[in-house]
């Protein structure tokens, strides 16, 4: 299967994967693709099914239905050892009685490669992952970060079809985590092997992924670039899982969002009918707060409110604003230092609340509405 030049090839296809454990449905009709050299992050809470998808792609679990295709080969019926995938486990699973070198060379030894070739590949990978000083050591003598690098080198040794990372940063300290994340991303860009990460950490997902797939209770809610998934969440779950979000119920009336006392003009195409019940979604950092006398023009006014709480959170200020509508709904607003120094606000102060950006999502309160999905 050859693609025309200029178009990226598809490395991994997951098609219609479903899985039940007993009566519980763990995965429901999962579909996505990973292109050559791309890094996809499967993001979801525990129990969302992300680990199960990874294990199904690796061949450690069998799906109830659907297919897994690696580089145009249907591997669904093939056991793990025949798939040529590289898995980096959460605990790294380094072989304790083998040295770093021996761990890395294991895959090639299994394939009965010549000693010279094994040494050459091992040397190259040790160089790539910066493990020269540790090559003769045993896993118990290595730090978490070093163990992770061995795990990656080991998986790369036999030219895997795809790299699968199972929450690789979970066992590490926060400081090391951010540094390693960047190192791994740089490494993956260099070797151009398609990779799939699973994580529950949204910051990690935003930083690591070329695209993010958000999973909720066995369903793929949205897949897209970090920017798209963050600024244009397709569902309420995605909006609230990735970053914080304020929600307000209302309806669409004559092409405008309407809640009591609130009128917002909607720009661009919004896939909702007139008179439909919707949810307004806006992020704390997209809210503008000003004293009535300091108004500017470049925002859509939401309503009035007053400051209930002000919290200093280091790089920015987190403010709770109580809105002047009958629901007296509180919203969360974050203000950067530039705002707080230029326009300081205190508790009890009356403010005008405006939105720089927002999203309209259909409000699925009825099962039938959810089923139809297309509006």
């Amino acid at each position, binding site marked *: 299967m050859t693609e025309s030049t200029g178009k990226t090839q598809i490395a991994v296809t997951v098609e219609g994967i479903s899985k039940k454990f007993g009566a519980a449905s763990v995965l429901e009709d999962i579909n996505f693709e990973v292109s050559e050299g791309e890094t996809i992050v499967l993001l979801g809470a525990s129990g969302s099914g992300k680990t199960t998808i990874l294990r199904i792609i690796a061949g450690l679990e069998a799906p109830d239905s659907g297919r897994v295709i690696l580089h145009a080969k249907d591997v669904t019926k093939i056991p*793990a050892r025949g798939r040529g995938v590289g*898995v980096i*486990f959460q605990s790294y*699973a380094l072989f*304790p009685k083998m040295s770093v070198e021996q761990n890395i060379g294991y895959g090639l030894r299994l394939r009965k490669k010549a000693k010279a070739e094994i040494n050459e590949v091992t040397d190259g990978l040790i160089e790539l992952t910066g493990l020269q000083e540790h090559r003769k050591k045993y896993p118990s003598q290595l730090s978490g970060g070093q163990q992770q690098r061995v795990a990656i080198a080991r998986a790369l040794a036999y030219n895997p079809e795809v790299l699968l990372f199972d929450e690789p940063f979970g066992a590490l300290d926060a400081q090391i985590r951010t540094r390693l994340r960047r190192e791994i991303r740089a490494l993956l860009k260099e070797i151009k092997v398609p990779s799939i990460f699973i994580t529950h950490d949204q910051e990690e997902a935003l930083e690591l992924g070329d695209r993010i797939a958000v999973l909720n209770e066995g369903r793929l809610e949205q897949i897209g670039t970090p920017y798209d998934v963050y600024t244009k969440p397709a569902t309420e779950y995605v909006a609230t899982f990735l970053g914080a979000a304020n929600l307000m119920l209302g309806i669409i009336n004559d092409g405008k969002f309407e809640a009591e006392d609130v009128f917002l003009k909607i720009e661009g195409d919004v896939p909702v009918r007139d008179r439909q019940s919707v949810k307004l979604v806006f992020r704390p950092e997209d809210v503008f707060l000003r004293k009535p006398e300091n108004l500017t023009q470049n925002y859509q006014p939401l309503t009035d409110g007053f400051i209930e709480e002000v919290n200093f959170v280091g790089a920015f200020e987190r403010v709770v604003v109580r809105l002047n509508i009958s629901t007296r709904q509180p919203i969360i607003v974050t203000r950067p230092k530039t705002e707080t120094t230029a326009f300081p606000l205190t508790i009890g102060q009356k403010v005008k609340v405006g939105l720089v950006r927002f999203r309209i999502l259909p409000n699925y309160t009825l099962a039938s509405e959810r089923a139809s999905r297309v509006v």
Partner: protein
Amino acid sequence: MSANLSGIRHTRGFDVIKPLSIMTLIIVMMPLVLLPLASIFIFGTSNGLRSFWNALTAPEAIFALQLSMVTSFWATAFNVVFGLFAAYVLSKYNFWGRNALIVTISLPTAIPTAVAGFALLLLWGPYGILGKYLEPYGIHLMFTAAAIILANIFVTFPLAFGVIKPVFDTMNQSLEEASATMGATRWQTFWHVTLPSLRGAILSGALLTFARSVGEFGSTILVSGNLAGRTQTAPLYIFAKFNEGQVEAANAIAIVLALFSFLIFSVLFFARDWLEAE
């Protein structure tokens, strides 16, 4: 060595309970364990080293020691291999009757050794349930070294298994999964990944089985016939010589067996950390 040391002060001045309880412990152990062990050495060397050496190098004595070592070796070899295999199967697979099998494997420890020996005779003896079919072909399993090996296998059956299975149960499954994703067959994974992690357990299982085997008496005396110079193991030799009134001869072998057991258990004790290492 695991301990639960307490640093609490219980009294204002000198706490007499600590030295008192330690002394009590030793005093109780004296007549029960410490003195009997000491007696073997005190008595055995009372007539001088020359006498001891003569008793030790008597042909029947040497034969008894050799027979003990050889039969114990084969029983250990079999039980370690089988124990490994059984631990693998019973740890990995779930099936109807699994728990019953685990209990059955552990049964031999609960059965009195004399009963075990007797049962073997009933099965393999010349008029035994299976033995009677072998008799016409001239195959006599009982009253031979083979019988001793069979009896030892029965009696020490659960020992190696009992040491190895917990290691299988607590083994990190990810290791085997990692090996599989890297392209290994089940056998390759077992050989390269699982077995090295079992080194310690296999060694302690083997030592335990061997030590127990060497010391086995109850079943051996029944199935071997206790024929001096033919089927008489070291413990049987001690028994026989004592009955004949040749105390010195018995004593010499007793010392050897005691020292041998000390050696094995020292290894098991002091190398425990290495043996249990991941």
